[in-house]
């Protein structure tokens, strides 16, 4: 085994996802403690353009598996590709973002390699020797610190919990890796992929989120949130109740069954703050609540609050921020 540390570099819509830069930053601190290098793993088909982007995000070496059978993501083919590349490059700890893909293949890869995995990490408490990681449990009401017992393991990190790595001054060496993939043996077929929201900031990666719940009263309420989101350069989130009431598309849902977000600023408008909602946003750095009910649970985890009607407060806040940020 080498001293090196590996990073799965996730791309979407032909661009490296911001969470990948954060994962590289985390891998860097572990690599420094081990005295090894950071090796990026880029998986997919037709990767010429992406490879040169990925070579500059702060890795020391970039291993690329470029294969026609990897054009569409599937857990089966990506697991094989990642494990193949990792082993050919000498093996070592492997870091993911705790994204849909990270959750889908991280545990599968860990088990194929006979390794432990720490999911949804928000802090590193010790990087050398037996690394220790902190992660939320019980819907974010508590945290546990876990220690990995062996030198090789898998970790997934929560987006926006760590700073991005510094970009490299010069691009890293790119190493093509061949992995045997035979689509005829695949047990899963991708029938259809329905894209949503292409071009918008992904909720999980937004710095600022303006979110609405039942208290914004309807789809018009979400129209009212848009100007506020615009002045802040924010993405729009929603509670499950608002989604179920058809105020907004399910892809905006924040919470245990929706997206897990950890922005710098989360503004909850007309959201009660049920535990399942909190599970998706309680690690946000600054939480603002706007709610008519001073006893709403959201105020227990908020840093700032206004007790009032969202229909009045949101436009007023939009105005004030326009002035301040002009």
């Amino acid at each position, binding site marked *: 085994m080498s001293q090196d540390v590996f990073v799965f570099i996730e791309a979407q819509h032909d661009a490296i996802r911001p969470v990948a830069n954060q994962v590289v930053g985390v891998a860097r601190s572990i690599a420094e403690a081990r005295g090894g290098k950071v090796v990026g793993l880029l998986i997919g088909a037709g990767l010429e353009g992406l490879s040169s982007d990925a070579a500059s995000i702060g890795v020391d070496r970039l291993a690329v598996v470029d294969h026609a059978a990897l054009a569409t993501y*599937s*857990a*089966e083919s990506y697991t094989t590709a990642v494990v193949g590349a990792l082993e050919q490059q000498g093996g070592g700890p492997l870091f993911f973002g705790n994204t*849909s*893909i990270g*959750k*889908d293949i*991280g*545990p599968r890869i*860990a*088990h194929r390699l006979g*390794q*432990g*995995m720490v*999911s*949804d990490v928000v802090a590193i408490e010790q990087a050398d020797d037996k690394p220790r990681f902190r*992660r939320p*449990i*019980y*819907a974010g*009401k*508590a*945290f546990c*610190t*876990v*220690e*990995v*017992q062996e030198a090789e*393991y898998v970790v997934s990190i929560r987006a926006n919990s760590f700073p991005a790595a510094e970009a490299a001054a010069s691009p890293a060496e790119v190493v093509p890796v061949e992995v045997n993939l035979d689509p005829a043996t695949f*047990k*899963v*077929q*991708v*029938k*259809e992929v*329905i894209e*949503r929201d292409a071009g918008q900031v992904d909720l999980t990666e937004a710095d*600022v989120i303006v979110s609405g719940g039942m208290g914004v009263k309807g789809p018009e309420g979400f129209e009212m949130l848009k100007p506020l989101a615009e002045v*802040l350069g924010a993405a729009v989130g929603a509670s499950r109740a608002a989604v179920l009431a058809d105020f907004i598309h399910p892809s905006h849902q924040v919470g*245990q*069954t929706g*997206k897990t977000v950890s922005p710098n*600023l989360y503004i909850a408008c007309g959201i009660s703050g049920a*535990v399942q909602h909190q599970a998706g946003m309680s690690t946000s750095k600054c939480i603002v609540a706007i709610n008519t009910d001073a006893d709403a649970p959201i105020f227990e*985890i*908020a*840093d*700032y*609050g*206004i*007790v009032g*009607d969202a229909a009045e*407060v949101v*436009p*007023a*806040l939009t*105005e004030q*921020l326009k002035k*301040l*940020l002009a």
Partner: protein
Amino acid sequence: MRLIVLVKQTLTTEARIALNDSGGIEDAKIKKVVNPYDEFAVEEAVQLREKGVAEHVTVVTVGPESAVEASRHCLAMGADEAVRIDDSEIESTDSFSVAEVLGAALKGMEFDLLLAGQVAVDDNASQVAVRVAEILGLPQINVVSKIELGEGEVTASREADGQTEVLTAKLPALVTTDKGINKPRYPTLPNIMKAKKKPLTIKSLSDLGIAAPTPKVKVVAHTLRPAKQGAKIFAGTPAEAAAQLAEALRNEAKVI
């Protein structure tokens, strides 16, 4: 067609979490329930049996004696049979160990579709079910909101970041369920009574022919979410309150 559902007992999500004297999570007086995501999986399995697509539903749990309540709940929802594997010999219930034990148990069982929750709300790991699929060489479709069982295959829609994927997997396969796939039923009194007569087997690790797995990760400490001071509330007219908030976001929290 035979279905197996992996079911974990967890603390009710409404619970206030506190630490006990030895620094662990205090769970003595807290109500225990079937992990909500596993309840969706059980409901889905029972519906498939009611539709005649499947014949038999077995729920499998790794847990302590008290987890029998979770097994009973699933039997009362309509599962035909329950197996509880006693966890008292397992040194640490890390995802690796639990998956190894479940894998060993399932190797001796016949099934076409394995169902599980997408995550356990207590440990927030999203690992065990996928690891079991890897052990058994099953294809997987994770976090699904719709399942259709066909001849020798299952088709399911999965929510991923920014997209919905529709996948078809050859059976036997693993499918993990998300909220919204169905509405889990409340067991009725007659069904609770009937459940008492259904087979409920308890197995030890030696019954499975395995030794306790060596954990790959160990919990060294629990901490509670730091209590916030309570929100700073801005009063006045909407314009006044909004002005103070904007000011605080810029100069105090420095987030804009």
